């Protein structure tokens, strides 16, 4: 087998793993968009907020320490304890649920029935507000997130591929774990949507609000639930990304990576979000590997958007969306 091909396989696998993260963020978008027609620009910031909250809780940081110190002239910073990862995650989930409730109660509830562009603007406001809150609550320095996930070169894969091709693949353990967790998350979501009462209600709300009301579904409850689920998905994405590259504000920019994924997969399709994320992840890495050297590199910055644009022209409904037929 040629070296080029062997390297390509490695690049492909790494792209797949990077794509998992895009899929997760896109999934958060799709959930909220389907249920309420809101394009949630804040999804990326939610991932950041969740990751920062998790780090803050685990390290025993005093929330709003800066604010408290400035107001009262105190010097508090830490509670002096640390919280184990599992409890930290549970508490963070709680925080994300409270956040979901707050977003619905104080913002979205008052905007029901408004134009999509207005809802979108509201989520832009939410994104910046949340970013500010995250900053105020936990401080803006880069943090390391360590919840004990395995990291570094997977030696088994390295050895096996070395024996097969005479070249050992570099696959990060963290990427493998992330993929497995993401897959489990998606399976859990599908089971939830298909087989539970709340999941059925969620699908009903996504389909038709009026009909949902008439069969006794509390729309407010479902919307808070959906924002909570999206918050949980954001937490998972935030943890993955944070464990890899540190928890920092650039994390919120993964939302921008999810955009081309959504154009590819369609805004309302869960399988679309997953497959779209993987395609962009793989496409981006392979393109950089094959074409990057010819054009001076840095193709990863724009490849996803160009691919999405091509898709928009030829298949505007996305991979799995229904064909758009103009009614006349």
């Amino acid at each position, binding site marked *: 087998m040629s070296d080029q091909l062997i390297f390509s396989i490695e690049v492909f696998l790494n792209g797949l793993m990077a794509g998992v993260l895009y899929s997760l963020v896109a999934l958060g978008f799709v959930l909220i968009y389907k249920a309420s027609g809101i394009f949630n620009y804040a999804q990326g910031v939610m991932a950041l907020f969740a990751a920062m909250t998790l780090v803050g809780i685990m390290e025993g940081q005093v929330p709003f320490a800066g604010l408290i110190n400035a107001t009262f002239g105190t010097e508090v910073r830490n509670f002096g304890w640390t919280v184990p990862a599992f409890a930290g995650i549970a508490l963070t989930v709680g925080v994300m649920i409270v956040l979901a409730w707050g977003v619905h109660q104080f913002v979205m509830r008052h905007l029901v029935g408004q134009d999509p562009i207005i809802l979108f603007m509201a989520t832009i406001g939410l994104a910046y507000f949340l970013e500010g809150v995250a900053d105020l609550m936990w401080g803006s320095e880069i943090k390391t997130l360590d919840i004990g996930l395995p990291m570094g070169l997977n030696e088994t894969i390295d050895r096996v591929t070395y024996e097969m091709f005479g070249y050992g693949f570099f696959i990060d353990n963290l990427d493998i774990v992330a993929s497995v967790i993401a897959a489990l998350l998606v399976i859990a979501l599908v089971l939830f949507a298909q*087989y539970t009462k709340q999941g059925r209600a969620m699908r009903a709300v996504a*389909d038709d609000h*009026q*009909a949902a*009301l*008439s069969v006794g579904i509390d729309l407010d409850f479902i919307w808070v639930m959906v924002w909570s689920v999206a918050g949980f998905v954001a937490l998972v994405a935030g943890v993955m990304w944070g464990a890899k590259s540190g928890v920092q504000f650039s994390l919120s920019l993964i939302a921008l990576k999810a955009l081309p994924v959504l154009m590819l997969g369609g805004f309302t399709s869960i399988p679309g979000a997953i497959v779209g994320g993987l395609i962009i992840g793989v496409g981006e890495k392979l393109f950089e590997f094959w074409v990057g050297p010819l054009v001076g590199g840095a193709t990863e910055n724009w490849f996803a958007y160009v691919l999405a644009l091509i898709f928009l022209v030829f298949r505007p409904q996305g991979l799995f969306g229904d064909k758009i037929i103009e009614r006349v």
Partner: protein
Amino acid sequence: MLDASGDGYITEDGRKIGGVVMEMRNITLRFGGVVAIKNISFDIREGEIRAIIGPNGAGKSSMLNVISGFYVPQEGEVWFRGEKRPPMKPYEVARQGIARTFQNIALFEGMSVLDNVMTGRLTHMKTGLMAQAIWKGKAEEEETANREVVEKIIDFLEIQHIRKTPVSRLPYGLKKRVELARALAAEPKLLLLDEPMAGMNVEEKEDMSRFILDVNDEFGTTIALIEHDMGVVMDLSDRVVVMDYGKKIGDGTPDEVRNNQEVIDAYLGVAHD
């Protein structure tokens, strides 16, 4: 014939009608300057088929929307099963056992017929999320029981052949029937039908009429329906409320309202003063 003073009455075809289930007292509903309902009172009795008729824009759908909680009247009281109802959201009304269909059909277009009808059972699904995750047996038991009710209704309305069909592919007449099935799946105490036969051909109308009568007969369901076709109204209903320009202009048996001068004028388009 009509004995509304006592507790119920016997219909022409010999069915026994019970006490008052739903009572509207002095309902007024405005939209800005438009008064959709003007100080209307009427009641619906246990086991009867009650029709609301009137020309276009009379306020019939608005009345149904008030009953089902979609509209909140500015004035008046709603009494359900002997209790004054506080202002309620539509989902709360549904959970009280009032199911409805819509004039413009509101189905879950992305779901199959079976899934649509199944959503009608949501108000009967008790098991909580945790229990569903942990105690699988209990949830399955409930699911099976709900499926049985749903299958019975699907058979009853003769839509077995389209159980798995996505609703978006169905013709209009069948959609109306699926919507009725979903409402029936809730086993409602009161069933509200907004123009269940609008836009249907003669044959479809006959089918739908038969289903409505059968539902009332077999399940004893109390039904309030809006209908334009006078022939159908006269055949189906026990008592009729007539509305015109938001006002009630008649209330009684089909024969009584048919001979009511004000009703005749409204339908012949006599100028309003």
